[in-house]
């Protein structure tokens, strides 16, 4: 299949691109390299260096005539979205619309796979583990922009029968993650531990998240290419892990014994987050293969082997 993938030089989508490439698909990667790296793009894929909001990105996608559009390019920093909600909306909503419209004009589009955000769209009042039926109740501009694009995809399906799979990620971590995104804590701790620098936990460390390994996320993206299911689906483990536990596991893998330093918590930070993976299992046949213990150890190992190069 011809697949256009936005943000394909970044953490998650470059891992997805590797898998698509290995399956023999023809790939167009659209990335402005503002946080992605050219070296992440698989050999054989065409890279167009363009901002997803730009006419250049739209033209490249339209000319490529993708059968599938995979949307990963995004402004992913929650704090930045609070500081500049306009920018966040432009990149995440307008940018996405620009690409979908271009792909539709190409004439071959039958499906959109979208990196949605299960971690930020349900807010902090939904029951845990949160399932997909909970109404969107985001608490940050980032959470709104990610949910907004999924709303639009629902319209495209209703109007044009355009199939979409919105993969609502929990906190994704693993190889190639940069420290600035949603689940940046794993990347930050890993970098610092391997550089023998002190790690700081904000709050008491008891706040929990649902950490899902990027290789499992890749598997969901592969299944999303062919599943008859259309709609939003959580990509999560259903397991809560505290930040203290994450530190403990990473430190163990990095063979560090110093504890993290505790600093005052950040106001408004969500205390608990965990998503139900039941629908992903039922609809996509997807189950995570990495528990946090194995996944975090693998992440440290990967970082070590890439640091020493």
């Amino acid at each position, binding site marked *: 299949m011809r697949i256009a993938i936005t943000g394909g030089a970044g953490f998650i989508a470059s891992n997805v691109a590797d898998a698509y490439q290995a399956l023999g698909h023809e790939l167009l990667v659209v990335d402005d390299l503002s946080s992605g790296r050219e070296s992440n793009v698989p050999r054989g894929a065409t890279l167009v260096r363009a901002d997803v909001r730009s006419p250049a990105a739209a033209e490249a996608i339209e000319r490529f005539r993708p059968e599938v559009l995979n949307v990963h390019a995004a402004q992913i920093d929650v704090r930045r979205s609070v500081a500049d*909600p306009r920018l966040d909306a432009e990149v995440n909503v307008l940018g996405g619309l620009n690409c979908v419209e271009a792909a539709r004009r190409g004439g071959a589009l039958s499906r959109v796979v979208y990196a949605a955000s299960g971690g930020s769209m349900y807010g902090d009042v939904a029951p845990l583990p949160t399932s997909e039926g909970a109404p969107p109740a985001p608490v940050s501009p980032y959470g709104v922009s990610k949910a907004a694009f999924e709303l*639009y995809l629902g319209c495209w399906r209703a109007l044009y029968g355009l199939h979409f799979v919105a993969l609502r990620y929990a906190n994704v971590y693993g190889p190639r993650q940069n420290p600035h995104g949603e689940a940046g804590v794993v990347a930050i701790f890993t970098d610092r531990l391997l550089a023998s620098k002190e790690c700081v936990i904000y709050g008491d460390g008891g706040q929990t998240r649902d950490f899902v390994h990027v290789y499992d996320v890749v598997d969901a993206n592969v299944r999303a290419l062919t599943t008859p299911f259309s709609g939003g689906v959580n990509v999560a483990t259903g397991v809560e892990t505290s930040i203290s536990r994450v530190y403990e596991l990473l430190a163990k893998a990095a063979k560090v014994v110093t504890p993290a330093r505790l600093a005052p918590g950040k106001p408004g930070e969500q205390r608990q987050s965990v998503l139900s993976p039941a629908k992903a299992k039922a609809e996509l046949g997807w189950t995570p293969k990495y528990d946090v213990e194995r996944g975090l150890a693998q992440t440290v190992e990967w970082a070590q082997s890439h640091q020493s190069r």
Partner: protein
Amino acid sequence: MPWDLDARLEAEAKTWLVTGAAGFIGSHLVERLLSAGQRVVGLDNFVTGFRANLEDAVARAGKGAGERFRFLERDVTRLDDCRAGCEGADYVLHQAALGSVPRSIADPLASHRANVDGFMNMLVAARDAKVKRFVYASSSSVYGDDPRLPKREDETGRVLSPYAATKAINELYAKVFQRTYGLETVGLRYFNVFGPRQDPNGAYAAVIPRWMAALAKGEPCELNGDGSTSRDFCFVANVAQANLRAALTTESGATDQVYNVAVGDKTSLLELYRLIRDRIARAVPKVSTLEPTFRPFRAGDIKDSQADVSRACALLGYAPTHTVPQGLDLAVGYYLERHGKAP
């Protein structure tokens, strides 16, 4: 007993920014506020609004109204224009938007820019100007495919058009702005508003003005669907009341909230057609037996819509003053005057 809106307005003159002021609903807000002695700043880019609406509104607001009104020909898709509008404003009534479901299907990016980017600009400008409250126009279209009737605010389905999506997104952003930055917001979900000054022309005109203008000229009307499609049509004076109450209510828990704004009744398109035809027929007798031409259902349209307005009644003290027939009585003259043949 709902609080007295006129007494509250009379007690103190405030400065209100009305965006989309030259549009149908915006111009009624301008008129209502000026009539109540308030200072009003109107903002519009004249993409879908008309200068004549503003002139009509100011003229009808009575003597001295023009001195309390200032107009800015500006565009909400530019942040600086929004800042200029919010300067010195106590309250914002944000109406500017590209309306119409079919328009949004034809050009979703244009609707997105006006309705989402423009909304975001207004939120940012209102936040930075420290306005007291931001009241904005949402839409019954956010109920999407949820079939439950009457519509209650917390029961929404999947949106069916880009226009509906823009309004649903507005509501999400408004909540985040109240919770993150402390800007008080109130969203009003309008249900098929009608009244004088609503534009009858163009591909995206609403049904009531289109039919009124056609019948006033003695021409036949097109009806999409089989006539059983129903709506909770709401006269514009009810909408103006809801806006002012939303801005001024001191009820706790009234902000960070959305409200249905309608009458709470439903009228089928066929019933509506007859109500309009009978009124126009008094001046244009030849339409008295004219039947509509039936056309296919339109993509993205919902079948039935009826509001539960109890939340607005409880928290805003809203009490609709005009039923559909009463509203049509008042609207019909406007269209006969402008589109009817001289007797």
